[in-house]
């Protein structure tokens, strides 16, 4: 490097994606393509009741009438929805939910990912639902949680075992008519988790779901529903990875959260889907609708996300603040390196009185990455004394990447106080040199600086995840500096 060049150049090299391995499994899959027949077969494979199939078909028929959303700051190639497999499950012995019956290959896979499914070896304080492709492989601590009245199970099991709860809450926050991907998900959703925390119960452990896409040409359509009754509390985590493949794969999820009076739900995501190679080949298309409703007074929903993976991310975890004095939070770090694109943010809809929301978004772009924050703060007519504070920062590494902010503010009540701050900065060559001069190499220096920049968000994650997320941030930017 010399004085003639920008010292921070994107001499982008392939970063190591260490979760890119493929597990060789015998799969039970439906043929490619999407039509009513496929949906009926899918529903039958899952042994679903009639009412669920009806919901799927209704959603599918509606989806057929919908157009792709085009407002996001994303360049997405046309996706051929007939070229995707909508159901693929590792063919093991009949899933019994017992540890002894889980295919050893699957156990090995999750072990390799750092997610032991053996309760004896579990990460202390964590219960895990492990989802591979279209089905849940194993849910740990299901029984001991049930002792305090908590339901933590795969979504598919819940459909069969708790139909009344599923029928009551599913689609109550994200109806299938919500958007294109929500309709698609409602038609073909595969698996995910169902969490129900009864009145007055504080969940004694962190609940988490680990999503793994393994099979080729398969879409994953996760569906998660979390309900916290009056005064209940739960902290829930979601992690995801996928093998390296040259062809793009689709992940279109729906997550719904319902918080009743005085309930609190913390939802954290560390999203590390395969981002594609350095030339932008392959990677996951991640189209996600996540929304929570603070139904009761003084309820609280908090979203924290660390988004480092995926070729394309389209995701806006949102809060509907219906109860009086309810609170919504959104803390986000999104990294785009190489050819990754992210259009992410949140919506805070203030309906109840004295509702508060906080938005902290930290975008990091490197390589040719494009990173957009898109956020809506809406204060409705009756939302007396609503407050919002938004802070959107962008950090640029190099000069071929982009950062964009699209804040939308709609205020229909004069008593509202809405504050928005935004900054854009570049990693300073002087900051890197300062670190170098203390003996710290450039790669480590960037890790330090980026983690410092994102600290406010990382601090919101449970301890074990925060450490993982820090490493991940560093790894995902490796090779981004010349």
């Amino acid at each position: 490097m010399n004085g003639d060049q920008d010292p921070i150049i994107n001499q982008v090299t392939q970063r190591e994606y260490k979760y890119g391995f493929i597990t060789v499994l015998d799969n039970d899959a439906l043929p490619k393509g999407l039509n009513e027949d496929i949906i009926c077969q899918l529903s039958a494979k899952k042994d679903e009741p009639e009412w669920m199939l009806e919901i799927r078909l209704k959603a599918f028929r509606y989806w057929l009438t919908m157009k792709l959303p085009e407002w996001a700051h994303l360049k997405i190639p046309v996706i051929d929805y007939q070229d995707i497999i909508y159901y693929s499950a590792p063919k093991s012995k009949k899933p019994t939910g017992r540890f002894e019956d889980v295919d050893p290959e699957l156990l090995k896979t999750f072990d390799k990912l750092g997610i032991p499914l053996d309760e004896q070896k579990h990460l202390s304080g964590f219960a895990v639902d492990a989802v591979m492709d279209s089905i849940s492989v194993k849910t740990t601590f299901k029984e001991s949680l049930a002792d305090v009245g908590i339901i933590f199970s795969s979504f598919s099991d819940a459909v069969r075992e708790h139909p009344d709860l599923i029928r009551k809450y599913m689609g109550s926050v994200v109806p299938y008519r919500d958007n294109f991907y929500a309709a698609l998900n409602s038609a073909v959703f595969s698996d995910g988790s169902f969490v129900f925390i009864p009145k007055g119960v504080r969940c004694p452990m962190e609940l988490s779901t680990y999503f793994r896409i393994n099979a080729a040409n398969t879409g994953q359509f996760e569906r998660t529903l979390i309900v916290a009754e009056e005064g209940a509390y739960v902290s829930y985590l979601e992690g995801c990875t996928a093998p390296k493949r040259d062809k793009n794969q689709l992940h279109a999820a729906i997550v719904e959260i319902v918080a009743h009076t005085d309930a609190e739900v913390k939802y954290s995501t560390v999203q590390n889907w395969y981002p594609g190679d350095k030339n932008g080949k392959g990677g996951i298309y991640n189209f996600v609708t996540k929304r929570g409703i603070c139904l009761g007074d003084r309820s609280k929903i908090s979203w924290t996300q660390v988004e480092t993976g995926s070729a394309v991310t389209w995701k806006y975890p949102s809060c509907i603040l219906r109860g009086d004095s309810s609170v919504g939070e959104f803390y986000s770090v999104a990294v785009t390196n190489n050819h990754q694109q992210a259009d992410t943010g949140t919506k805070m809809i203030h309906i109840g009185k004295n509702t508060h929301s906080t938005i902290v978004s930290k975008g990091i772009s490197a390589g040719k990455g494009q990173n957009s924050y898109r956020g809506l703060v809406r204060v409705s007519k009756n939302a007396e004394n609503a407050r919002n504070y938004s802070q959107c920062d962008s950090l640029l590494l190099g000069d071929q990447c982009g950062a964009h902010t699209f804040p939308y503010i709609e205020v229909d009540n004069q008593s509202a106080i809405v504050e928005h701050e935004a900054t854009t900065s570049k990693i300073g060559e002087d900051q890197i040199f300062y670190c170098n001069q203390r003996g710290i190499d450039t790669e480590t220096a960037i890790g330090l600086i980026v983690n410092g920049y994102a600290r406010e968000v990382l601090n919101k994650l449970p301890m074990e995840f925060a450490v993982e997320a820090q490493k991940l941030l560093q790894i995902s930017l490796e090779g981004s500096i010349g």
Partner: protein
Amino acid sequence: MLNIRMLSIRNLKAAINGMEILKGINLEVNEGEVHAIMGPNGSGKSTLAAVLAGRDIFTVTGGEIFFDGKPLLGMAPEIRARSGIFLGFQYPVEIPGVSMVNFMRTAINEQRKYRELPEMSASDFLKLMRDKKALMEIDSALASRSVNEGFSGGEKKRNEIFQMAMLEPRLAILDETDSGLDIDALKTVAIGVNRLRRPDNAMIVITHYQRLLDYIVPDFVHVLSAGRIVRSGDKTLAYELEEKGYDWIKEENQE
């Protein structure tokens, strides 16, 4: 006294954006010595410090540097640092969100790894931090703050000296650590530096004013002007400079 050579700078030339700033610097520094470099603004003092530390925005266009017998040019800045070169910055840089503890711990462990020493345990590290804070008379809140973020000018300079105390460099280059300090702050900085002087290390103290040298007594004083060392002497040279001003050097040079 046995003179062990630590640093040799031979006919060093350096440029930025095609403009030559250093025009042939010669300097020898032995173990146990303190050298002061004085000179008017823009004479190239900071450039010399930056080139020694390996800042790549400057292009070395000629000459050589040896540090402990090894050629320094071409060595990455972090390797120079790990080999024992420390630069106290004239304008210390802010790194938001990175705590001093984390920053220093990373630096120390990187340096130890290079020297094939085991990583320092958290408790040993925190003890070291406490000891050095006491030695340097540093406010203990400093360590829990982010690197230089929101520090006053004086706090930033003291933080540089604190880092020097933590890293125990073989060669410390302090670039105008005195500038912008009131007399009390200046004294604390000087006391700190004096406590770190040892027979087996060396310091290059860059200053614009003579007053720092009342507290840090140098073995040699060099005057830099327009990219060259135009005068070298003992500490009395500093007094002479103070009395006659830099114009004296400039005029003498033109003759």
